[in-house]
């Protein structure tokens, strides 16, 4: 920790994609077992400039370009993790996780369990997912629920540059396979971050209350967090005071923060880009009802894209994704006028 205690931390704006680079640089300097593998992570610096400079600083042994072979190099990273390295793996787009399901689901998630606890699999696999950039049906998906369904994996989805930095650093130091689902639409977004602290960690498995409110709890995930906050700021002027919770880690899910918010608000809206059926929202609602079926004063609501692939055409994709307007409209319907401020 370099942060001085006697003066305020120096904060500067950090972009979402630079948070990725910074997390990797700091953790690679800290631990020589951390290596980075993936398509174009080397001299090119990646499609979003997310690995720029790392190949030059750490060399080709530790920052290595792979051929286009997601299954092969993901499995390779798992074998390396079992034998002492701590690989970071890039899968360019979240949709391409389908090309490496076996290493993730049948190998990484189960090896420690199957092998009697003899091995650890400290791999951080990050990928750019979700929509909002007109990338079409095979480059816009949010598949978080699939992986949250598998014991042995951890799943994180940072909604800001600061969270990306803190969560990724924790993921790299974690002894498990952590899947980090980044949001393409947030790549250029900025946030103030302490520039001197190279031990800035956000613990995995903890939700964060992003905005305090009293009328309704909005659980928003990934790029939906900003949209929910923007909606809440507008609605406050109309007397609706929404509390925004970002789970940040989808597995293991911190339900306690959500439950304690609901004790106060009694109303629940969930907003995510992943599909609604069998999704994270469904799981949150189930957990809330299991905890106390009388906790909610009105039916819970899920706001997600329709059950269709993500369309390409900009107008269609705008309609497809939840946004500030649709979140606001939903919240107006949930909070009766006589209960507003």
């Amino acid at each position: 920790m370099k942060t001085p205690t006697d003066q305020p931390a120096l904060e500067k704006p950090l972009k979402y994609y630079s948070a990725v680079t910074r997390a990797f640089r700091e953790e690679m300097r800290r631990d020589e077992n951390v290596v980075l593998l993936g398509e174009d992570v080397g001299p090119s610096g990646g499609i979003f400039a997310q690995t720029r400079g790392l190949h030059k600083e750490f060399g080709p042994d530790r920052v290595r370009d792979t051929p286009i072979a997601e299954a092969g190099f993901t499995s390779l990273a798992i074998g390396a993790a079992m034998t002492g390295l701590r690989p970071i793996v890039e899968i360019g787009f979240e949709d391409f996780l389908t090309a490496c399901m076996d290493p993730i689901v049948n190998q990484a998630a189960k090896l420690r369990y199957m092998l009697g606890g003899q091995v650890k699999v400290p791999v951080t696999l990050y990928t750019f997912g979700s929509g909002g950039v007109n990338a079409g049906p095979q480059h816009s998906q949010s598949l978080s629920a699939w992986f949250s369904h598998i014991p042995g994996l951890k799943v994180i989805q940072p909604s800001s540059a600061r969270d990306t930095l803190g969560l990724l650093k924790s993921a790299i130091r974690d002894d498990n396979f952590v899947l980090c689902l980044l949001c393409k639409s947030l790549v250029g977004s900025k946030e103030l971050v302490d520039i001197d602290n190279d031990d800035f960690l956000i613990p995995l498995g903890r939700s964060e209350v992003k905005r305090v409110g009293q009328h309704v709890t909005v659980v928003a995930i990934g790029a939906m967090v900003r949209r929910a906050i923007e909606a809440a700021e507008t609605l406050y002027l109309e007397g609706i005071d929404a509390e925004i919770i970002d789970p940040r880690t989808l597995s293991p899910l911190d339900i306690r923060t959500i439950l304690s918010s609901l004790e106060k608000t009694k109303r629940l809206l969930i907003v995510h880009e992943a599909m609604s059926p069998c999704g994270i929202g469904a799981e949150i609602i189930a957990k809330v009802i299991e905890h106390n079926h009388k906790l909610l004063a009105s039916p819970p609501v899920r706001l997600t894209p329709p059950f269709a692939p993500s369309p390409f055409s900009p107008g269609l994709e705008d309609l497809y994704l939840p946004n500030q307007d649709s979140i606001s409209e939903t919240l107006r319907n949930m909070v009766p006028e006589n209960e507003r401020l």
Partner: protein
Amino acid sequence: MGDLTPTKALELHQKMWEIRLFELSASRLYKEGALPGFIHLSIGQEACAVGACLALESNDYITSTHRGHGHCLAKGASPNMMMAELAGKVTGYSKGRGGSMHIADVAVGVLGANGIVGQSAPLACGAAYTAQVKKTKQLALAFFGEGATGAGPVHEAMNIAAIWKLPVIFFCESNRYAELSPYDVHVSVPNVSVRASNYGFRGLTVDGSNVAEIYEAVSTAAADARGGNGPVFIEAKTHRWHGHYEGDPMTYLRPADRDTENRVDPIEQFEKLMAERLKIGDEAISAAKQTAAEIIDAAVEYALNSEDPSPGVMYEDVLA
């Protein structure tokens, strides 16, 4: 026989018997209902496991397959803990959570048998990459069958290993049948070792019943890999005597393979060579077999007398 010493020959010989007797015991126990689930045996393939593993250093790694008992034993895993795992006992390698297909002993370099065909290859490349980055001079050997050579991960692994010059040996036990279908359903060429040349490294085919030949081939490949020359592909033509799984009626066997008289027994063949070429006496040969029998009988005893796992074992080691 190359420069095989009598001591090394006796070591190879005893290990082959340990595997044969382990597998025969497992087959018997399975029929008796003492082993649950599915088991896949490697009777007839003992020379492959032994010739390959005994040519490696103790800190080299192997990755194995669903038919992996022989590989694990040859690399030095404990027969007691293996048999206990097959029986689902808490004293087994996986505390009864993995079973036959997930035996591992990382301390002796066994990174695990694996239930997914083809994954042994890229996982071994990972261990080889660690050795390369840490400059340890270790290597990794991946066992797989000819059936796995139709699977993408094996090809992805071969391509990466070749580009990165990884210290890895791809060891294919070409045993005439993959699952329930013969070789030509799975492979388009007579010798699958030719696949290596397309990726720019050396591939060779050896007699999978000849333990001395395998030992020599793997020793040479290991020296190559350790020297930074990259991967080698070794195809060992062998013969799976039992079915894909125990209880498999093998209705698919081709006529030539039904006649068990035509089979070469790798152990018998090696015993002849030991006697004729290395002048090892009958007594030494019998003694090695006897030692193997005692080891395996003790393993069966150990497994059958072990406790079942307690319910809490189910929840352990899900996460680190």
